[in-house]
């Protein structure tokens, strides 16, 4: 059978997919990250370096077919406006149909990172921004659109070192590891700020402060303190892999909780927290 078929919607030629795997006309990058083994199969017209540029930090490529998760990225014809469409699958399930290569890279990047976050057995991923500020680790947990990126950006503007604005990645000692969004994606991804490489954290970071700061337009940052148990519960609310790996996640986040002071409250402008931090005795 020909490895290509005609897409009935676009009448363009697309690779055949059997059982979630492309049959030919593709290249594959297999890698592991945080113990999760992933294969990304992609249309051979896309360069391997493009794919590598959006893989998660600390990824290690390997040869071989034994992987836990399989992604594919292929061209899927053109739009009526002449744009090239793409299709991203996880296994045999269509995850997204982006309309440009740049958008496809952003989606692939997010999907693969989330897969690592969900399935890792080695580390605990929490939806949070992370910076080092005056030598202290600051963790800002919260779901998407809770204002994490704005808060992190404000701290970066004050000289903080960037670790992540998406996931806090904790090892067994409760230390946060850098998990930055690749610089090549920051503009496309809507984060819109390029960060110099020397401002990106390199070493694991012991958390000193955890801020549950919920943005509200008219909010005023007058936080209350949280007990360790309350803090752990709120971290679990933002944990990605607690359901899949509860023993590890609970132990790791306990280490984080014991090491750090935690505050919660509503915030208005992010700079108010920056001022508050200046006056805070760690």
């Amino acid at each position: 059978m020909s490895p290509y078929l005609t897409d009935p919607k676009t009448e363009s030629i697309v690779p055949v997919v059997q059982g979630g795997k492309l049959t030919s006309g593709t290249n594959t990058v297999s890698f592991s990250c945080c113990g999760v083994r992933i294969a990304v199969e992609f249309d051979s017209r896309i360069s391997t370096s493009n794919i590598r540029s959006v893989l998660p930090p600390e990824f290690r490529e390997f040869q071989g077919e034994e992987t836990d998760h399989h992604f594919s990225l292929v061209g899927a014809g053109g739009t009526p406006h002449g744009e090239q469409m793409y299709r991203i699958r996880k296994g045999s399930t269509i995850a997204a149909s982006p309309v440009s290569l740049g958008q496809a890279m952003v989606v692939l990047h997010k999907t693969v990172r989330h897969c690592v976050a969900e399935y890792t057995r080695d580390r605990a991923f929490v939806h949070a921004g992370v910076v080092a500020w005056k030598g202290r680790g600051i963790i800002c947990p919260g779901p998407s659109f809770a204002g994490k990126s704005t808060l992190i950006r404000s701290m970066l503007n004050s000289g903080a070192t960037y670790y992540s604005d998406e996931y806090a990645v904790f090892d067994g000692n409760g230390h946060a590891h850098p998990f930055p969004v690749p610089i090549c994606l920051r503009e496309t991804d809507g984060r819109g700020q390029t960060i110099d490489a020397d401002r990106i954290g390199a070493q694991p970071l012991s958390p000193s402060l955890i801020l549950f700061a919920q943005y509200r337009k008219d909010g005023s940052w007058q936080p209350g303190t949280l007990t360790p148990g309350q803090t752990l519960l709120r971290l679990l609310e933002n944990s990605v892999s607690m359901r899949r790996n509860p023993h590890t996640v609970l132990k790791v986040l306990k280490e984080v909780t014991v090491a750090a002071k935690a505050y919660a409250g509503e915030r208005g402008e992010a700079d108010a927290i920056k001022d508050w931090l200046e006056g805070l005795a760690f």
Partner: protein
Amino acid sequence: MKPIARKDELIVEEVLGEWVVYDKNQKRAHNLNSTMAWIWHHCDGRTDVDEMAMQFDQEFGSSGSLDLIRSGIDQLEAADLLVSAPRDVAHAMAASGPEMSRRSIVTAGSALAPILVSILVPTAAAAKSGGDDGKDNKGKG
């Protein structure tokens, strides 16, 4: 009358005097403050509620903690952290009506009040989106 703490399918971590309990069946996490943790720990199937209250008073130098213990056991039962709940406690609380409610309010205001807060641990997708995370504060204290 002699409550038993549930142990199956639970993961328990002690965090500086508080306990965090994860229920693998229901995908819920509970935070037990130190008083609630003490009560749960004493739900050993051998100690009835009156004895538990006396032990509590001796240990913490308090007095008349029966309502406090009952309040704690009621919350533990609601959170499905007991194997069997002492039915007569629920009956007694229902029967005593407004008077018991007032006492519960006094209990809730005390520094030793047992507090249990529960969340539904989100799926990976829900944690990402910040969607319905099923937060259901069951704290009554």
